[in-house]
């Protein structure tokens, strides 16, 4: 093992990385850790239903109220128990599980060929990432190396999906804060992106397109032109958003300084993605632990400076621009060749071969009845989803089904910062804070 120990980091100023823009320093890690990093350890309401019901309203000045699970700003079925003093929020308890359907248990009953149909439904706003991480975990155990075109197809779909996911955020964030025109615009642009995903994968959502060993099909004819038309249409519209949102005093007033988070808090609570980057901490797996072909493309990691709701909004808006940059490079650099590995024990033969080759028929039959086996072992693989680190912990017992499938959903961890974002704010700001975390409940509850 080399190196045997990680470099001693405590006390040091941070790593210096030389770039074309001079040396850049990662945020200091010399701060406080653990519970002591939390500004208010009492921000989390730890009270059961029974206790809340039997609390005597006549004593004390606080009120406990329920927000959700069917509140429009909770993005699905999130429920918050809020302790209020007047209109100020003291403690919060996020109550989750309303969308729990046992997907990790279901994952143990599906073969590696069927598994993506399950994982793709977890983060339904970014399904491509869930398929990619599941396949990457299986490929990691099998030691599969993908052909270049398969890697670039995945990267193209991931970035396209990141754009649609961020447009979904812009739309819902606008809706939550009363900017209904933003909702319509965000939905419009997302729909165009989704049509493009439909052109490539055949489905608008829950694609089941990324498979172990590559993808289900090659890119269709005309994908370049369609993608270019889409990318050409976006800069003008993003500029429109900036006029509509950034330059609008009401929008800034609703978001700036609301739901402020510090880097120490974000790290202590396990936050990742735009929530962590909004605090000025540049950690993006695409750059820092490059997977797929992110090494070969040029893009910037967007960070905020105040850690407030406005930063989280602005990061996502600008990440759309970075994803567009990556997509342009995908158009230019898409390598020719196979879109999946040519291992007939893993990827099914082309339909035509089945008519002429007995072996192809056998392979096809075996793959779709029994599935392929993955060597015993366990592994963890992560990708940068639009919400943060999406990880897959996979345990295999050398059969064709995962022995244990755990998905580390970024929203699940990001939700834990909510009590700290809401603490001391007002009810009206709560909506802005929840929205800025952009939780997808399908991934939280799984």
């Amino acid at each position, binding site marked *: 093992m080399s190196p045997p120990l990680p470099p001693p980091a405590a006390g040091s100023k941070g790593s210096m990385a030389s770039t074309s823009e001079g040396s850049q320093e990662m945020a200091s890690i010399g701060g406080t*850790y653990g519970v002591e*990093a939390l500004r208010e350890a009492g921000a989390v309401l730890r009270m059961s239903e029974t206790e809340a019901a039997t609390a005597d309203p006549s004593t004390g000045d606080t009120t406990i109220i329920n927000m959700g699970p069917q509140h429009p700003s909770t993005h699905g079925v999130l429920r918050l128990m809020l302790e209020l003093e007047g209109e100020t929020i003291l403690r919060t308890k996020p109550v989750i599980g309303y969308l729990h359907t046992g997907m990790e*248990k279901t994952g143990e009953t599906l073969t590696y060929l069927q598994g993506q149909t399950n994982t793709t439904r977890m983060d339904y706003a970014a399904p491509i990432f869930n398929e990619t991480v599941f396949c990457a975990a299986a490929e990691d155990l099998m030691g599969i190396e993908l052909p270049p075109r398969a890697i670039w197809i995945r990267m193209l779909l991931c970035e396209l999906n990141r754009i649609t996911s961020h447009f979904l955020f812009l739309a819902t964030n606008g809706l939550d804060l009363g900017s209904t025109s933003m909702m319509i615009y965000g939905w419009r642009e997302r729909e165009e992106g989704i049509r493009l995903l439909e052109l490539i994968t055949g489905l608008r959502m829950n694609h089941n397109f990324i498979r172990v060993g590559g993808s289900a099909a090659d890119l269709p004819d005309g994908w370049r032109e369609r993608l270019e038309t889409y990318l050409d249409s976006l800069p003008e519209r993003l500029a429109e958003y900036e006029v509509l949102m950034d330059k609008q005093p009401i929008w800034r007033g609703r978001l700036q300084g609301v739901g402020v988070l510090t880097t120490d808090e974000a790290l202590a609570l396990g936050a990742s993605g735009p929530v962590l980057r909004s605090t000025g901490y540049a950690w993006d797996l695409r750059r820092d632990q490059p997977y797929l072909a992110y090494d070969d493309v040029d893009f910037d990691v967007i960070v905020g400076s105040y850690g407030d709701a406005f930063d989280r909004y602005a990061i996502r808006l600008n990440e759309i621009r970075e994803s567009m940059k990556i997509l342009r490079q995908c158009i230019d650099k898409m390598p020719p060749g196979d879109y999946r590995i040519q291992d007939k024990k893993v990827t099914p033969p082309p339909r035509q071969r089945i008519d002429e080759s007995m072996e192809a028929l056998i392979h096809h039959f075996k793959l779709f009845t029994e599935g392929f086996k993955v060597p015993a072992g366990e592994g963890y693989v992560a990708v940068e989803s639009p919400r943060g680190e999406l990880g897959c912990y996979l345990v295999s017992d050398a059969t064709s089904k995962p022995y244990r499938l755990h998905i580390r959903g970024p929203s699940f961890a990001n939700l834990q910062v909510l009590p700290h974002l809401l603490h001391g704010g007002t009810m009206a700001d709560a909506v802005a804070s929840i929205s800025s975390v952009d939780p997808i409940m399908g991934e939280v509850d799984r």
Partner: protein
Amino acid sequence: MSETHRAGDPGASSPDPTDPVAPDAHIHGIPVVEVRGQDVAFPDRSELVDLVRKLRADGYIQCLTVTGVDYLASPQTGLPPTIRPERFEVVVILVSHLARRRMRLRVQVPEHDPVVPTLYEVHPGTEAAEREVFDMFGIRFDGHPDLTRILMPEDWEGHPLRKDFGVGQVPVQFKDAPNR
């Protein structure tokens, strides 16, 4: 080690995956095995919090997730010879942003006493993840501030991700309702 050998094991010439693996290094006295580019450490339950605290000082400043595995139906793989396999395993995944590396801690938890000390004091973000492991596997976390069910209903019986909790054991409502 278990004597179980599965039929159709791919690559018959490869060594048995359940064989003990010699540790590559020791970190704070805990054996570490490198598995496909990631470090996997095997602390004892009593050593867990101390190790995580020391690793935090080494730069592993974020805990990504805590999860569990029930090895009731399959033998464990990749354990060093000094580690005795138990039914449950708690898996903690840490990341060092500076070294750009992840470290996985695999903690053996016996069936008769499924208790692990909580990491809440070191990484408060483990609170929800530990509740999920408690909910799904029935592993208790000693010292956790609010160890209650998180995904399943409060009055649920059993722990769904255990291997002896069958799929489809839930009675179906309105099953006997007349057909239209």
